[in-house]
C-alpha cells in the first residue's frame, strides 16, 4: 500500500514538473518545425496540357491550383504557369474573361491578375523539360524560367489526358514517365531543388511517378494505374465539365488552408477518398526524407516568410520586457545644476540674495 502511494505521488510530482518542461518543448518544437524543412524559397510549375474547348476542366484545374498558390504567398515571379489553350477568351465561352470552378458560377478562378507564362502552342514537352532543367536559350525572359536553387521547394502540378506511363501534350505529343524521372534527376544533379512535390491529375496518373528515382520527391496522383480520373460537374450554362473531381476536392481543401496553417501532408493524402473521387488517389513518399506528417502544406503551396515565422514564435513564447526611455543619470543633473548655481552666485553675489528673499 505504501509503495503504491509512493508511486502515485512520484508520478504526480513528475507530471507537475514536466508540464513547464513540456511547454518549453512544445515551444521549441513549434519553432523547430519552421526550420526543419530547410528551404528558403518556393516555386511552382503549373501545367495544363490539353487544348480545345471541351477540355475546359483542365485549364480550370490548373487555374485553381494557381489561385491557391498565389493566395498562400508565392508571387507571380516564382510561378511558371503553362496553359495550352485560352478558355477565358475562347469564342465558345458564354461568359468571357471567366473560368469557373464551381457550377452556378460560384468561383471565378481566372481573377484579375493571372500571369500566364507559356500559352497556347508554347506548351510543349520540350519547353516543359527545358523549364525544369533550366536549359533554355539565353534570350528567354525571366518570367519563363524556373530560377530555383538548392534551397527551393518546388510544386509541380500536371493535368490533362494521360495513360499508363505517358501524358499527352496538345493532342500531338507525349511525355513519358521515364523522361519525367530523368528530368527530375537532372534537376537533382544540378541542385535545382531542395524538395519537390509532384501532383498529377490525369487518368492512370500514378504511373507517372512510378519511375522516379531522385531523392526528396513526394508525389500524389488522382488515380491508380488502370483507373480513370473523372470530371466533377458540368455547368449547363457554360456547357462543359468545369473541374476534375480530384482537383475540385483539392481546391476545397486548399481553400481552408491559410499561411499560418499547420495542416500537413497526411491531410493532403486524405483529400478525395474513393467515395468522393470514384478513382483511388495515390501517393509516393519513399524518396522523401522527412516524415510526411511533419511536412506542412505551406512548405510547398505557400511561401512562409521569415518575419511571419518570428511573429508566430513570439506569440507562443513569453512577452519581451517593455522598453524604457533613456534618462540622464542623476549624478550628472546634480553636478550640472550645482555648477550653474555656483556660477550664478559668483557673478551676481550673495548680497543680492537678500533682495530676492
Amino acid at each position, binding site marked *: 500500500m505504501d509503495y503504491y502511494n509512493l508511486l502515485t505521488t512520484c508520478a504526480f510530482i513528475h507530471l507537475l514538473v514536466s508540464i513547464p518542461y513540456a511547454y518549453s518543448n512544445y515551444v521549441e518544437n513549434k519553432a523547430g518545425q519552421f526550420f526543419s524543412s530547410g528551404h528558403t524559397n518556393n516555386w511552382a510549375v503549373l501545367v495544363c496540357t490539353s487544348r480545345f474547348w471541351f477540355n475546359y476542366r483542365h485549364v480550370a484545374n490548373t487555374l485553381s491550383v494557381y489561385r491557391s498558390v498565389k493566395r498562400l504567398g508565392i508571387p507571380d515571379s516564382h510561378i511558371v504557369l503553362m496553359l495550352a489553350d485560352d478558355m477565358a477568351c475562347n469564342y465558345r465561352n458564354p461568359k468571357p474573361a471567366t473560368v469557373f470552378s464551381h457550377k452556378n458560377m460560384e468561383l471565378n478562378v481566372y481573377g484579375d491578375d493571372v500571369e500566364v507564362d507559356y500559352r497556347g502552342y508554347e506548351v510543349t514537352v520540350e519547353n516543359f523539360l527545358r523549364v525544369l532543367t533550366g536549359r533554355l536559350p539565353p534570350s528567354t525572359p525571366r518570367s519563363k524560367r524556373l530560377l530555383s536553387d538548392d534551397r527551393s521547394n518546388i510544386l509541380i502540378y500536371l493535368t490533362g489526358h494521360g495513360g499508363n506511363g505517358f501524358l499527352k501534350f496538345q493532342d500531338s505529343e507525349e511525355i513519358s514517365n521515364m523522361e519525367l524521372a530523368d528530368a527530375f534527376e537532372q534537376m537533382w544533379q544540378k541542385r535545382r531543388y531542395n524538395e519537390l512535390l509532384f501532383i498529377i491529375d490525369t487518368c492512370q496518373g500514378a504511373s507517372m511517378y512510378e519511375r522516379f528515382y531522385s531523392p526528396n520527391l513526394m508525389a500524389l496522383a488522382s488515380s491508380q494505374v488502370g483507373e480513370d480520373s473523372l470530371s466533377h460537374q458540368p455547368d449547363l450554362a457554360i456547357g462543359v465539365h468545369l473541374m476534375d473531381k480530384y482537383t475540385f476536392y483539392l481546391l476545397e481543401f486548399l481553400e481552408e488552408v491559410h499561411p499560418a496553417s499547420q495542416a500537413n501532408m497526411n491531410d493532403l493524402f486524405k483529400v478525395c477518398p474513393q467515395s468522393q473521387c470514384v478513382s483511388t488517389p495515390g501517393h509516393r513518399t519513399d524518396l522523401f526524407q522527412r516524415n510526411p506528417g511533419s511536412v506542412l502544406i505551406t512548405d510547398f503551396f505557400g511561401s512562409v516568410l521569415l518575419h511571419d515565422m518570428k511573429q508566430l514564435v513570439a506569440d507562443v513564447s513569453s512577452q519581451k520586457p517593455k522598453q524604457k526611455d533613456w534618462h540622464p543619470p542623476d549624478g550628472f543633473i546634480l553636478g*550640472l545644476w550645482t*555648477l550653474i548655481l555656483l556660477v550664478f552666485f559668483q557673478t551676481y553675489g550673495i548680497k543680492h540674495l537678500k533682495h530676492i528673499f
Partner: protein
Amino acid sequence: MAAPLTLLLIVAVTIRAVLFRSSWAELISERVEVVSPLNAWKRVVEGLALLDLGVSPYSGDVFHETPFMIYLFHFVVDYAEIVFMVSPGLVFCLSRFLTSLYLFRKQKYALESDRYPADCLELLRSPKEMFYIPLKVAMFYLLNPFTILSCVAKSTCGLNNAIIALFILCTLKGSALLSGILLALATYQSIYPLTLFAPALLFFLQRLYIPVNLRRSSFWFFTLQYAFIYVGSLVVITGLSFFLLGSWDFIPSVYGFIFSVPDLTPNIGLFWYFFAEMFEHFRLFFICVFQINVFFYTIPLSIKLKEHPVFLIFMQIAIISIFKSYPTVGDVALYMAFLPAWSHLYRFLRNIFLVSCVLLACSALFPVLWHLWIYAGSANSNFYYAITLLFNFGQILLVSDYFYAYLRREHHLTHGLYLKKKDGTEATLVLK
C-alpha cells in the same frame, strides 16, 4: 527704441512660425547648404531614438552632437521649434547690449575730439548715428534669410551662434568668469571658437588697462587667470559629459569628426571636394594644412589689431565661418549680423559692390547647380564646387575689405583725412 525692437521681434517670429508650419520646412531641413552632418536636426532625432533603444548614439556615423545637446534636447524635443526661435533672441540681446558699448564710446567722443586733427571729426561717429546700430544688428541677424533658413531647418548651428553671442555679450560686459565659461562651452560645441580666446583676452586687458607687454608680470598674471578659468571650465564640462553617458566615445565622434573630416557630403565649404579626390597617402598632410589654416590667422591678426579687440572678434568669427570643416549658412549669418556695427567704414570699402553681387549670385546659384548636378544630371560636382569657391572668395573679399577699411580709418584718425605727399599732391593709401 523698444517699440521698433519689439516690432522687429514680432516680424521675425511670425516669419519663422509661418515657415515652420508650411511644407517648405521639410525641404529646407534637407538642403546641404543649410544643414551639415554636424548640426542636422534629423541626426539629433536619430541619436535620441538610438538612446531610447539602449544603444550609444555615437555608435555608427549618425550623431555628432555633444552630450550637452543630448541633455538639452532630451527634454525639449517636442518643443524644438520654440528652442530654435529663442536662440536668435539671444543674439538679439547681444545687439541690445551693443548700446552699452557705444554709450561707453560716447564718453570717449568728447576726449577724442580734442586729440584728433580737426578734419577728422567727420570720421568719428556721433551718438546719434550709433543709436540705431543695435536695431540694425538685430535686423541683420533676425531677418537675414540665412538665419531664417537655418532656424526653420532646426539646425543646431543656431544654438552654437547663440552661445557665441552670449560669450561676446559677457566679454563686452566685462565679466571674465562668465566669458571664460561661455567660451569653454562654445569651444566644447565645436572646436573653432578656441581662436576667440585671444580677442577676449585682449579686450579684458584693454579694459583693465593692462598693457600688452610680454615682459610685464601683470599681463602674465591676468592671462594665466583667464586661461585657468577657460581651461578649467572646459575640463569640467568635458568631465560632466563623460558622466552623462558614462563613456568617452563622444570625443572621437565629435572632435575626431570635426578634425578628420570623414564625411564628404557637399556643403558650402572647401573641404569636401578637395578630400573627395585626395589620395589616402596625402590625406593626413592636407587635413593638417586645412585645419591649421583656420587657426593660423589668430596670432598675426591679434598683433595687428591688439588695440581693437572687438573688430578682432568679428574677423575671427568670419575666418572660422569661412575655413571651418563643415560650414553652413548659419555660420555666415553670424558674422554678417555684425556688419552694421562697422557701418562707419562704408566710405572706405573698395569692393563692396562686387562682393555683394558675388554673394547674392552664389546664394541664388547654390540650389540651381545642386539641382542640375544631382537631379537633372547635366552638371557635375565641379559646377557646385565652382560656386562654393566663388562664395568663399566673396566672403574672404568682404572680410579683407572691412579689414582694409578699418585700418585705413585708424590711419586717417592719426594722420588726418586728406593726406598729402611731401610735395603737396594728393596721396592714396594702399594696404600692403
